[in-house]
């Protein structure tokens, strides 16, 4: 072995020094996160998310309430699965609730009794689960109303609105499935009703019912089937859709109310990290706390008082949970003559319209609304600034009318309780509500629209003439006038930052050669709808109007430009050009 110029180490002399083992992420964020980033590369996207800015307004937190109550449902539901036995097998009760000892009942019902009375904390968790479910759907509905009345469903968020509609509908089904699991008298009555609903489908009804119940009602299969749907299928879909929903919120960025410094192109608020996250985290605990408090103090679904399901008894006050109330109400209002026989079949439209058609029709209309409105307005712009409801009188009025209709149905579901508590005749209540279903929305529409229009006029007045101070000034030449105090530019901004659509003009139905436009009919409908929406709209104050008011008026410093941090002159940007009409 002769010596060589290179020793062992020398062999590697040309190698580059090993790269630094630390990713840049490591330097920025500490040890564990850096370690994770090295393996997942998550730092960048997460950093991006964390820097997202959220505007602040209490009404933006309604969606959060829904999200947290859903999480509470997931957690408490998991706890319930440890003990709940989804089986219709018959057993004799021998637990600690004396008034049911020795009664034959299903395993599902017995296990729910055991959760309630014999498992430590079980009743609390059951009540948490059910109260959270109710709160979930309440919050989700009010969240939906917020989105509707502020116009947050407009481009580019139509898709998210549709997802929201699906989420809301599935939540109803999820709730109904849960309500049917414990196999108590109410849930069995609910299932019995559901079975009747299926049978009201013309021709196919009894097949559907046999298919779902795997034979005649009630059978042994429905509880295990509902169980899979309730704890596996629907939660998975709900969580999946919800993730997309919230993901789209990040992609679109959150909308904001108009205000000084807020434009269609920015978002004014706090970054997710740390402010917003801290707030949101805190809010989760508040929601959990409130739900736990309610659950600790107030009974919900006392299944032990209802007793086990048995097809023969039915109790007064058999109602579904509130979110199914409107469908129940529709059933109570539908007149009996809608059931008739033809071709040897019985057609039960008195049941089918309320029970089978109502929910899909309602949700389809809701999901389509953004597209309808966009078609009517011909508006193809993106909208990131919310509308004040009064500035969209027709939409607001339509929303209130729809709510009124829903409200009538909801009241109808409690017609028996109203009768007994108010000492009225249930027949009279039903007749009145039937009429109200058609009349009340029209009145609600008209009243709401009038209110919106007058609020808008009041705003205009405020902007043009300022606040009445009640101080009478006598000028040197003996004239009297009341001094009006002009609004400060910040307050004014909120009142003028919206645009008003004009009704679409009908294009010539035929061209100069007399060839009828192929779309003439559609255009006419569209123009008519557009007039319906915008005929009496109150335009926002223009800079010119403001200037004019300033000159002939008693106001001072009327057009003092935009708030300091605005990038465009205020009065210009407060009036955007109407979009080109297609």
């Amino acid at each position, binding site marked *: 072995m002769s010596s060589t110029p290179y020793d062992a180490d020398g062999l590697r002399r040309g190698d580059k020094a090993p790269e630094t083992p630390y990713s840049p992420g490591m330097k920025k964020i500490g040890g564990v996160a850096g370690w994770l980033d090295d393996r997942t590369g998550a730092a960048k996207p997460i950093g991006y998310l964390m820097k997202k800015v959220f505007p602040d307004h209490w009404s933006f937190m309604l969606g959060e309430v829904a999200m947290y109550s859903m999480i509470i449902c997931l957690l408490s539901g998991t706890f319930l699965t440890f003990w709940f036995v989804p089986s219709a097998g018959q057993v004799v009760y021998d637990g600690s609730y004396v*008034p049911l000892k*020795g009664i034959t009942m299903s395993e599902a019902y017995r296990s729910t009794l055991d959760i309630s009375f014999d498992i430590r904390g079980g009743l609390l968790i059951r009540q948490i689960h059910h*109260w959270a479910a*109710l709160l979930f759907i309440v919050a989700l509905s009010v969240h939906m109303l917020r989105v509707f009345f502020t116009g947050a469903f407009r481009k580019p968020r139509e898709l998210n609105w549709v997802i929201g509609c699906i989420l809301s509908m599935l939540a109803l089904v999820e709730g109904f499935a849960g309500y049917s699991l414990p196999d108590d008298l109410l849930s069995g009555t609910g299932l019995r009703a559901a079975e009747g609903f299926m049978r009201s489908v013309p021709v196919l009804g009894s097949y559907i019912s046999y298919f779902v119940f795997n034979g005649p009602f009630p059978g042994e299969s429905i509880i295990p089937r509902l169980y899979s749907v309730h704890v596996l299928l629907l939660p998975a879909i709900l969580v999946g859709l919800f993730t997309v929903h919230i993901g789209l919120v990040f992609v679109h960025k959150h909308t904001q109310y108009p205000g000084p410094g807020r434009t269609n192109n920015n978002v004014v608020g706090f970054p997710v990290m740390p402010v917003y996250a801290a707030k949101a985290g805190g809010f989760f605990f508040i929601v959990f706390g409130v739900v736990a408090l309610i659950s600790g103090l107030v009974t919900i679904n006392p299944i032990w*008082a209802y007793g086990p399901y*048995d097809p023969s008894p039915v109790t007064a006050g058999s109602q579904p*949970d509130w979110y199914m109330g409107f469908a129940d109400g529709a059933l109570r209002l539908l007149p009996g003559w809608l059931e008739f026989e033809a071709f040897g079949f019985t057609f039960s439209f008195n049941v089918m319209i309320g029970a089978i058609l109502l929910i899909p029709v309602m949700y389809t209309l809701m999901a389509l609304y953004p597209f309808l409105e966009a078609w009517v307005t011909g508006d193809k712009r993106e909208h990131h600034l919310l509308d004040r409801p009064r500035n969209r009188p027709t939409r607001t009025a339509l929303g209130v009318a729809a709510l009124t209709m829903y409200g009538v149905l909801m009241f109808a579901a409690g017609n028996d*309780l109203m009768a007994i508590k108010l000492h009225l005749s249930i027949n009279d209540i039903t007749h009145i509500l039937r009429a109200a279903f058609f009349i009340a929305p029209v009145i609600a529409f008209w009243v709401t629209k009038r209110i919106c229009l007058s609020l808008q006029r009041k705003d205009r007045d405020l902007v043009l003439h300022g606040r009445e101070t009640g101080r009478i000034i006598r000028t040197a030449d003996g004239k009297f006038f009341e001094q009006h105090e002009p609004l400060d530019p910040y307050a004014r901004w909120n009142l003028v930052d919206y645009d008003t659509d004009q009704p679409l003009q009908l294009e010539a139905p035929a061209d100069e050669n007399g060839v009828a436009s192929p779309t003439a009919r559609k255009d006419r409908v569209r123009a008519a709808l557009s007039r319906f929406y915008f005929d009496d709209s109150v335009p926002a104050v223009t800079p010119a109007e403001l200037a004019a008011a300033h000159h002939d008026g008693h106001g001072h410093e009327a057009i003092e430009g935009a708030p300091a941090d605005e990038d465009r002159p205020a009065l210009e940007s407060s009036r955007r050009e109407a979009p080109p009409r297609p």
Partner: protein
Amino acid sequence: MNALAARRRHPAAIALLILLGLVVTGVGYSVLAPKTASATTASASQVEEGKKLFLANCATCHGLQAQGTKAGPSLAGVGAAAVDFQMGTGRMPMAAPAVQAPRVNEVRFTQEQIDAVAAYIASLAPGPAIPSPEYTSGENANVALGAELFRVNCAMCHNFAGSGGALTRGKYAPNLRDIEGKHIYEAMVTGPQSMPVFNDDNISPEGKNDIIAYLHAVDKQENRGGMALGNLGPVSEGLFIWVFGLGIMIAFAVWLGRKAA
């Protein structure tokens, strides 16, 4: 004094005067009325006494021979139980025509007087008798069986917990909280108003006692899950979550929004 004199002709004066008169007689009656009541078997004198009371208080509606008039049904064959129930729960004498005679908590007759009228009505034609205390105490009974019987036979009108429910045209099945066992039993055997009769073939006397035991158990029950919201089922729960649940959540949201701003 002048002021009073001036108001003498006020329309409300008459109403006030009548009210005053009524209060005075009412108080005077309750002071002077005999207090001890010892139940005895129907004697001729008791029937006689009952007839007098009947003529004075009931005949305007039910007729001089209890044969019935337009204002009230015939009482032949309703039995002592019906009278004891109707008078003992304050339903009769009915104060004013209404879709249904409501329960009135201040009963205006002593048990002795009620027994006398019951004896008189029972002497006209046979009918269900006042039940023996053995079956109305709710003791030595099976609560679970009573609960089941109640769910099968009564809950459709009276609600699962006996909280009451609406019937057609303003009629209603009343709340069954804190009702004496005897009256529960009598309601079952006489079927007041729209309520069906549950005779001994439908529900045996032991079964009736079980039902009484169940209803009394519900009266005494502490609510396991907290406040029961009137035991009215999902409607009151929905109302609660909308008003309180949503209310509290919005209050917190507004508060947090304020904090951040």
